[in-house]
């Protein structure tokens, strides 16, 4: 590649400015404000604030509600990741076969990704609402007591399905690309070596997909941690009780509903640290391993 050398620093700075400005305005400033806010305690009317050091953090970590939300997040995000990745992998393997209309099939599978989280939630609501939902009514008529507004486990199940459904498309694209990059002849060699399709999948295809799978695992966890607010908000609002309140949802409840800005900021800082850790693990792992 050709390197361009600028005379002086004015032009390069000018060219970098938009990107730097975006990073500063939309990331550094709010993140900095959150960190600063997390060290303060504000009075209920927002008239004055007091520096309290790390007290917000110690209080948050000691709260049983916060621990409950952390537990919910753990269940929710691992279930979403497993469900979304498993479904996507299954669909990608099917789409990788030479079938009639493969292109249409692939395009259709990618569509859900273009649906906004809240819209996706409404869609699932219309399906699973106990009194107006198609599936919800059918379940109740079949004698299964389905009401996610009363049953916490059912509510959790519903937001897991809705959140996973959104993410299947994304995973599908990556898995399909991963599958298509496996040389045909390698699979043919395995077939000649005596491996049946199921065995080929477990001993050849899956190991060769593992870099893709690991990347997707981190992406899916981050998605489940942060990008599922819309789905939860529209479907269950964290309820019934606090059965579906995840960490990100609790940040909202604490800050917007309870107007406890210090505590809410402390929680979002904790989340920020978590995602930074996840990303770091991913980069370390990808650098070290798995490129064949």
């Amino acid at each position: 590649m050709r390197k361009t050398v600028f005379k002086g620093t004015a032009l390069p700075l000018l060219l970098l400015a938009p990107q730097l400005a975006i990073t500063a305005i939309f990331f550094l400033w709010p993140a900095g404000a959150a960190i600063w806010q997390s060290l303060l305690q504000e009075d209920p009317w927002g008239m004055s604030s007091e520096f309290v050091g790390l007290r917000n953090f110690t209080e948050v970590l000691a709260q049983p509600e916060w621990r409950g939300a952390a537990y919910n997040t753990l269940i929710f995000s691992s279930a979403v990741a497993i469900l979304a990745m498993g479904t996507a992998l299954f669909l990608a393997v099917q789409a990788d076969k030479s079938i009639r209309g493969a292109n249409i099939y692939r395009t259709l599978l990618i569509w859900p990704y273009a649906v906004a989280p809240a819209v996706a939630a409404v869609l699932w609501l219309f399906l699973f609402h106990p009194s107006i939902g198609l599936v919800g009514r059918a379940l109740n008529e079949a004698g299964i007591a389905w009401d996610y507004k009363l049953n916490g486990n059912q509510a959790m199940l519903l937001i897991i399905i809705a959140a996973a459904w959104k993410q299947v498309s994304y995973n599908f694209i990556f898995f399909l690309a991963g599958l298509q990059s496996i040389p045909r002849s390698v699979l043919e060699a395995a077939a000649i070596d005596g491996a049946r399709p199921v065995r080929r999948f477990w001993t050849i295809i899956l190991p060769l997909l593992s870099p893709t799978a690991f990347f997707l695992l981190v992406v899916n966890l981050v998605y489940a941690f942060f990008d599922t607010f819309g789905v939860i908000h529209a479907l269950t609002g964290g309820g019934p009780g606090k059965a579906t309140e995840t960490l990100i949802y609790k940040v909202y409840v604490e800050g917007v509903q309870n107007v406890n800005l210090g505590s809410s900021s402390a929680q979002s800082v904790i989340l920020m640290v978590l995602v930074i850790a996840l990303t770091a693990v991913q980069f370390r792992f990808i650098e070290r391993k798995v490129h064949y």
Partner: protein
Amino acid sequence: MASLDVSGLRKSFGPTHVLHGIDLAVEDGEMIVIVGASGCGKSTLLRIVAGLETATSGSIRIAGREVTALEPAERDIAMVFQNYALYPHMSVEQNMAYGLKIRGLPKAEITRRVAEAAGLLGIEALLGRRPRQLSGGQRQRVAMGRAIVREPKLFLFDEPLSNLDAKLRVQMRAEIRRLQRRLGVTSLFVTHDQTEAMTLGDRLVVMHAGHAAQIATPMEIWARPADTYVAGFIGSPAMNFLEGTLAEGGQAVALKAGPVLRFADGPRAGGEGMPLTVGIRPEHVELAEGGILLPLDLVEPLGSETVLHGRLPGGEALVVKLAGPAPDAPSLPVALPAAALHVFDGETGKRLDP
């Protein structure tokens, strides 16, 4: 070790007919080379024998057992691919052991066989490496090793040498031949390279547009090609073809370029004036005083031999290969010895024998 019988094998991809009825009988321990230009159906034929493609009609028998409908796994064959197709996430040892593990051989037996094959191929030192840490020649050896350990009934080679550089290719070619002789495994070898075909095969199958144009030993194909395609494909530089008609009651050919040549081996059947194609290999054309004057447009000195390109009076191209250097002249008199002529039907291109 086994025989292979292919009979009436046809393959179509939709309306495209790729193979038009191939019949081939390979004896136990024989090495058959399938050679042809790209798109002639040679790889398809190999893949059908392997079970990677299904035949449209016809049958395949390995060691007398009908395998046409069987999966590749059930055919007891091994294949070496053009791009080697090693499993990238496994070590060399695991690559070689994979097929044996699937068959549930005891661990000790697997280790023994892998070590034996590695010794045979000189790759003992590489057993712990991954394929991406190997050079092209080493990968090729591992691919061979993976085939050998299986002790299959049939070896299939799909242009395994075409990704190697010229020097390594010659070396591996000899190695494959030695190994195949030593193990005595029936083999099918696909290539587009006529030198590979001539040196490797006990017999060759020259494929042309989905047909087996000729199946014979390399020397027989060289000496008595069945049609103009085979004649032009085997031999380098390619055989010269000259147009002519049958003359003197079938005793001779009147060349479009002028001279009338009497056949050395007897008359050909056919009416006076029947169109013929006469073939003569460049190395058989002689320089002779009083011959046809050949104006030269290109001289290629190759050291031990010289290749001359010229045009006969009728405008037909003629290539001459001389042992040693050529006399320095703008045109040379050449003669076409009657004993070296190959006579083909001018319309069908089929060989005409007396």
